C-alpha cells in the first residue's frame, strides 16, 4: 500500500490540510511501484525533504498501458460519446476549481513558484484549458467529400488509442492540463509521467479525476525518472503517440526512440532562446514591464522566456536603467510570502546549472550588470540577473539557461536585429515593442517563431495555438490545432454503383 502524504499549510497565503496518496495511479487505483522503491521530493525553498513518492519502473508502464488499452477498448474512445467525455472533463475542472487554493499551495511547495502566481496563472490556466477542451469533445468532425455519384466518401477523426505524455517541472499542473485536455476530449487513454522533481500536483489531480468519475484506466500517472519511465513510454510498442515537453536534448531522444520502435506519433515542445526586440519608438515604460515579465516570470524557468533582449541604441541607456530598477524590485523569497515575486529555482541541479551559466558569462567576458548571485543561504534562490556587453558566440547568448538571466543587446538597424533575432536554432516565441504598428507587424512576420507577441510577452490562452519553429518543437498545443495531435483521420470510401471488372 502506498503511503498517504498529509501536509498542513500554515502560511500567510494559505492555511489548510492537503492529503493524497503518493502511489502510482493505475487503473483508477493508487498502487506501489513494482520495486517498492521511492523518490525523494524536495522543497526547493529549503532544500529539505517534503515526502517520498512511489517510483515507477518500465514494468509499471506496462501495467498502466494495459489498463489504458483496456479502458480505451471498453469504456472510453469510441465507446464513450463526446458529450459524456465533456461532462466528465467539466466535472474535473469544477473539482480543480473547488480545490484551487490547495492545488496552488501544493504547486508552490513542490515547484517553488509563488503561491500568488500558482493560483492566478497555473491554476486558472489549467482550469480554463480543461473546460476549453471539454467543449471540443462533442465537436470532433470529419468531412464528406464529393467524388462521383456512385460513391460516398467521408472522413472520421478517430482517437489514436493509448498516448504517453511526459511533462516538465516548470508548470507541472498547467502542462498536465495542456496534455490531457485535448487527449481526453478526443477519446484517448493516457499514461502520464510527471517530472520527478514535481510529482505532487499530478497525484492530487489524479485523486480528483477519480472523484470526477473517469472510468478506470483512462488517466494513469506513473511517476519516475526519465531514463527509466520516460524511456519506457517513448519505446513502448502499444503506445500510439508520445507527447513531450522539456529540453531539446531529451526531445531528440524521444523522437529517436519512436523511430526505432513502432513509429509512434511524436509531438515535442522544447527549448527556446526567444528574442525580445524593443524599438526606439516603443512605449518605454510598458516595454520595460513586459521585458521583466518576459525573462523573470516563473524564476525564468519558462520555455518561451524572452532571454535575449535587443534594445535600440537610441533608448538603450534609458531602457537599461529602468530595466535594472525593475529587476531590483523583484523581491526574491518565500513562495508563500505575499510580498514575494520570485521563488527558488526548482532544484539543486537547476540551481547549479544556472550558476554555471552565470560563471561562463563572466569567463567569456560579458558584464554582470545586475545580480548574478545566490540569494540567502538556504534553498535555491538566485537573484534576477542582467548581462551586458555580450557577443553572439557566447554560451549565455546561444544556449537556453532556464533561469532568471537575461542578456541585453544593443542594435541600431531594423534589418540587422531581425537577422540577429533569427540567428538561433530555436524558434519558440518572440516579442516586438513599437508604437508604430506597421514596424511591429512587419518585424513580427519576419521573425521565425511559433508565437509572436506584439507589445506584450508570455501571454497564453487555451484557445490560441502554441508551439515551436525549427528546433523548438514539432506540432502545436492548445486551440483547435492540438486536436490534430490526438486523432487519426480515416477516409471511408463506400461504393454504391461503380462496377469494376478485372477482365
Amino acid at each position: 500500500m502506498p503511503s498517504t502524504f498529509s501536509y498542513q499549510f500554515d502560511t500567510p497565503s494559505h492555511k489548510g490540510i492537503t492529503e493524497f496518496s503518493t502511489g502510482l495511479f493505475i487503473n483508477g487505483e493508487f498502487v506501489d511501484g513494482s520495486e517498492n522503491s521511492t523518490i525523494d521530493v524536495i522543497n526547493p525553498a529549503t532544500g529539505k525533504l517534503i515526502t517520498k513518492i512511489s517510483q515507477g519502473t518500465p514494468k509499471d508502464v506496462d501495467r498502466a498501458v494495459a489498463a489504458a488499452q483496456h479502458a480505451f477498448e471498453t469504456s472510453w474512445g469510441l465507446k464513450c460519446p463526446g458529450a459524456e467525455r465533456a461532462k466528465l472533463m467539466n466535472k474535473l475542472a469544477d473539482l480543480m476549481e473547488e480545490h484551487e487554493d490547495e492545488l496552488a499551495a501544493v504547486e508552490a511547495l513542490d515547484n517553488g513558484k509563488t503561491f500568488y502566481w500558482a493560483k492566478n496563472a497555473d491554476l486558472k490556466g489549467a482550469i480554463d484549458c480543461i473546460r476549453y477542451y471539454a467543449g471540443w469533445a462533442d465537436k470532433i468532425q470529419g468531412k464528406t467529400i464529393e467524388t462521383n455519384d456512385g460513391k460516398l466518401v467521408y472522413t472520421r477523426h478517430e482517437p489514436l488509442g493509448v498516448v504517453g505524455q511526459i511533462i516538465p517541472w516548470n508548470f507541472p499542473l498547467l502542462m498536465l492540463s495542456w496534455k490531457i485536455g485535448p487527449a481526453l476530449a478526443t477519446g484517448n487513454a493516457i499514461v502520464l509521467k510527471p517530472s520527478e522533481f514535481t510529482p505532487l500536483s499530478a497525484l492530487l489531480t489524479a485523486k480528483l479525476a477519480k472523484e470526477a468519475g473517469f472510468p478506470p484506466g483512462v488517466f494513469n500517472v506513473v511517476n519516475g525518472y526519465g531514463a527509466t519511465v520516460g524511456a519506457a513510454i517513448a519505446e513502448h510498442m502499444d503506445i500510439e503517440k508520445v507527447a513531450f515537453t522539456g529540453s531539446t536534448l531529451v526531445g531528440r531522444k524521444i523522437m529517436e526512440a519512436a523511430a526505432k520502435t513502432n513509429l509512434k506519433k511524436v509531438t515535442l515542445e522544447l527549448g527556446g532562446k526567444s528574442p525580445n526586440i524593443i524599438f526606439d519608438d516603443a512605449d518605454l515604460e510598458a516595454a520595460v514591464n513586459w521585458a521583466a515579465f518576459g525573462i523573470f516570470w516563473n524564476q525564468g524557468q519558462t520555455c518561451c522566456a524572452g532571454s535575449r533582449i535587443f534594445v535600440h541604441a537610441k533608448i538603450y541607456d534609458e531602457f537599461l536603467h529602468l530595466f535594472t530598477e525593475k529587476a531590483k524590485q523583484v523581491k526574491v523569497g518565500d513562495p508563500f510570502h505575499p510580498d514575494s515575486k520570485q521563488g527558488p529555482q526548482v532544484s539543486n541541479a537547476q540551481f547549479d546549472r544556472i550558476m554555471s551559466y552565470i560563471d561562463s558569462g563572466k569567463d567569456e567576458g560579458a558584464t554582470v550588470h545586475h545580480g548574478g548571485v545566490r540569494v540567502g543561504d538556504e534553498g535555491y534562490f538566485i537573484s534576477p540577473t542582467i548581462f551586458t556587453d555580450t557577443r553572439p558566440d557566447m554560451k549565455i547568448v546561444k544556449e537556453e539557461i532556464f533561469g532568471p538571466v537575461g542578456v541585453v543587446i544593443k542594435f541600431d538597424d531594423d534589418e540587422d536585429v531581425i537577422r540577429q533575432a533569427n540567428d538561433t536554432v530555436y524558434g519558440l516565441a518572440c516579442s516586438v515593442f513599437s508604437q508604430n504598428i506597421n514596424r511591429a507587424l512587419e518585424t513580427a512576420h519576419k521573425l521565425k517563431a511559433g508565437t509572436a507577441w506584439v507589445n506584450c510577452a508570455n501571454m497564453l490562452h487555451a484557445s490560441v495555438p502554441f508551439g515551436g519553429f525549427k528546433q523548438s518543437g514539432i506540432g502545436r498545443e492548445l486551440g483547435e490545432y492540438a486536436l490534430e495531435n490526438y486523432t487519426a483521420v480515416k477516409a471511408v470510401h463506400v461504393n454504391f454503383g461503380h462496377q469494376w471488372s478485372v477482365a
Partner: protein
Amino acid sequence: MSSHEQCYRSLASPAKPLSGTTSYSTQIPRKLPPRATITMSKFTQVNVPATGKTISVPTGLFINNEFVPSVDSQETIQCINPATEEPICSVVAGSAKDVDVAVAAARSALKTTWGKNVSGFERSRLLNKLADLIERDAQELAELEALNNGKPVKIARDFDIGDSVGCLRYYAGWADKIVGQSIDIDNKTKLAFTKHEPIGVCGQIIPWNYPIMMWAWKVAPALACGCTIVMKPSEFTPLTALKLSELVVEAGFPPGVVNTVPALGSVGGAALAAHPGVDKIAFTGSTVTGRKIMEAAAKSNLKKVSLELGGKSPQLIFESADIDQAANWAALGILYNTGQDCTAGSRVYVQDSIYDKFLQTLIEKAKALNIGNGFDEKSGGGPVVSKVQYDKIWSYIDAGKQEGAKCVLGGEKRPGKGYFVDPTIFTEIKPGMKIVKDEIFGPVLSVGRFKTEEEAINLANDTTYGLGAGLHSNDAGQCMRVSQALEAGTVWVNQYNLLYNNVPFGGKKQSGIGRELGSYALDEYTSVKAIQWNYGEKLDWPL
C-alpha cells in the same frame, strides 16, 4: 432509445386555419374581459393536481433580470391545461411598448456587460451553469411543461429537458471557439483578418410544441456568440419560458442579456419583427407567419432572418426494408408529440409488393400507443395543445373523409374533457387532397403506394415543403441514390425524427431559411467583419 438521442424533437407551427389566411396570428387570444382593471401579482402559485405540489410561476414580463408589469397593457394571457380544459393561471400579455423596453435593455447589455465586453470563457461558464440549474429543476419544469402543453411528464423531463441541457452545454463549448480567419494578402505590406462578431440584439419567437427545447435551441447559440435576446414564447405555452427566466438570473447572467416578453404574436411578435432596434429575428412556427416576419424585416431595418417553418415530410418504405422496424419508425414519425412536430412524417409511401403487410403492421403499432393525461405514467402521448389546434385537426380529418380518402384507423372523437386526438390513418389518398398537401400538425397520417423508386422520389418531392424525409431500405445503393434525390434539410435513413445537438437542422424550399444546431447555427448569430490592414504600402496620388 438512449438518452443521448435527441428523440423526436421538432419545430412547431402555431395553429393555422385551413383557408391559409395571412393574419399575423391566427390564434384567437384568450383574454380576461378587457373592462376589468387587472392588477397582477408578480408570481402565482400553480397547483399540479396529479402530484398535489404547487409551483411558483412568474407572471410578469422579464426585463433586465426582473419581473415587471407591462408599461401599458391591461391584458393577460390565460393558460389552459389541454388535458382538462381547465385554466392554469394568467400571465401578462406584453405590448409593443413593452417590446421597446426589452429591446432597450438588451441593447444596453450588449454595449456594456455582454457582446464584445465579455470573454467567451465567461459566456461558456454561464451557459454551463444555466444547464446545471435546468438539470437540477428538471422534474418541476417537466411538470409545468406537461401542465401547459399536455405532453407526458416523463417525455418532457427525459427528452425535451434532457436535450435542452445538452444543447446549452454543447453551445457553452462553442462560446470560446468563435474564430475568424487571418488571410495573407501579399506577405509584405498587407494583412487581412476576419472577426465573427455577435449580430447584436436578437428577437426570438418560439412555438408551443416544444416550449423548453425550442427556447434552448434559440438561446444557446445566441448567447454563445455574445448576442442579447428578447424572447417571445408562444401565447399558448408561456409558463416554462418565464420559469427559465428565473434560472437565467440565478446562473448569473448580467441584466438585459435575456429578456422574456410573453405576448400575442400579433402584438409582441409583430413588434419584434418590425423593430428598428432588433438586429436579427429568429422564428420557429408556421410558414404563414414566417412570411409575415420576413416581410416585416424587409420593410423595416432589413434585420437578418432565420426561419424554421412547417413541413409535410415523406417517408418511403421500399420492399427490401425490415417491415417491423420501418413500421416502428413510421409510427414514431407521425405520433411522437401527438403529431405536433414539424418534421412529422405525415406522408408515408409504401412499395406495392409490401403494401398490405406494412399497412397492417403499422396499424397495430399505432394502436399500441397510449394517448392520455400527461401525468399518467402509462401515457406515451398527451392531448393536442389547444382547442384551436383540436378543431383544426378535426376539420382536416373531416376533409379527408369528404374528399374520399379511406380512414382505416381512428377518426372518431372521444367523449369527455380534454383535447385528445387518437392516431388516425388514411389510405387511398390522391395528391390534391388537403390531408396530403397541408401540414395538419396532429396524429393524422396519409399512406400512399408506389411501384418504382423514381415514382417514390417524385411523390416525396411533390410538396412546397422540405424539412425532413425518411427512407427505409436494405439496399445500400438505393439508400444512397434516394437520400441524394430527396429535397429536404434532413434525410433519415432507416430511422426517423432523431436529432442531435451537433447535427444541423433546418428546411429546404418553404420549410425555412438558415440552420439551427451544430456549428452551423453559429453563423446565424454572428456577422463577419473583414479587417484590412496596410502596414507597408505607400499610396501614390493622383492615380
